[in-house]
């Protein structure tokens, strides 16, 4: 199944700055998903990144705040822009683990972001 390398694993950032999170997959995948997991909470989908087209954002998330790049079928970045303490969360990328949903989805190890 697909393996994802996500970095950074954690960061502490000043408010007003931006952080770019990277996910590298060891195989080509059509869609990559970006999630946010606030402390002690469930996963919330931020956006879906397709290679060659604009990312599609979920309600409550906008491109200006969370710009996404998807330059090829194995790589994507999510930027958290103009950060505030409310952005402190774990950010995860995810892809289908294999052909067909029987393998579920693989997640990156997550980026634990603290905004101070």
């Amino acid at each position, binding site marked *: 199944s697909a393996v994802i390398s996500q970095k950074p694993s954690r960061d502490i950032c000043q408010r007003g700055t931006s952080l770019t999170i990277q996910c590298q997959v060891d195989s080509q995948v059509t869609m990559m998903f970006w999630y946010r997991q606030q402390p002690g909470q*469930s996963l*919330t989908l931020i956006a879906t990144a397709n290679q060659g087209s604009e990312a599609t954002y979920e309600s409550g998330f906008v491109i200006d705040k969370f710009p996404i790049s998807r330059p090829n079928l194995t790589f994507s970045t999510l930027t958290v822009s103009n950060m505030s303490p409310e952005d402190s969360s774990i950010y995860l990328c995810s892809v289908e683990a294999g052909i067909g949903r*029987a*393998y*579920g989805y*693989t*997640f990156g190890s*997550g980026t634990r972001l603290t905004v101070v």
Partner: protein
Amino acid sequence: GQQVMQIPQYQHVQEGEDFTTYCNSSTTLSNIQWYKQRPGGHPVFLIQLVKSGEVKKQKRLTFQFGEAKKNSSLHITATQTTDVGTYFCAVPRGGSEKLVFGKGTKLTVNP
């Protein structure tokens, strides 16, 4: 939009006791997936259920999909400290590849 209710939110058990978490949907599901997230870790896929009334086992874990495909359960027999973590169910939103996650059940095990 698609929602799935998961209960209980927390469960604390003594090692050796059984544990069950439940997920319920108001609509018929095409499938349901289960994930485990260890403390400080990321979600890890456990299983997918597709067929009405399906029951699957993985060692001490038993997964069930309801006859109406609107509910599912994960049962752990004789919990061990290695079972600690949060268990999430996840369902596809509409006919898409996007997943909607339940709120999760956080399991703690007292040795």
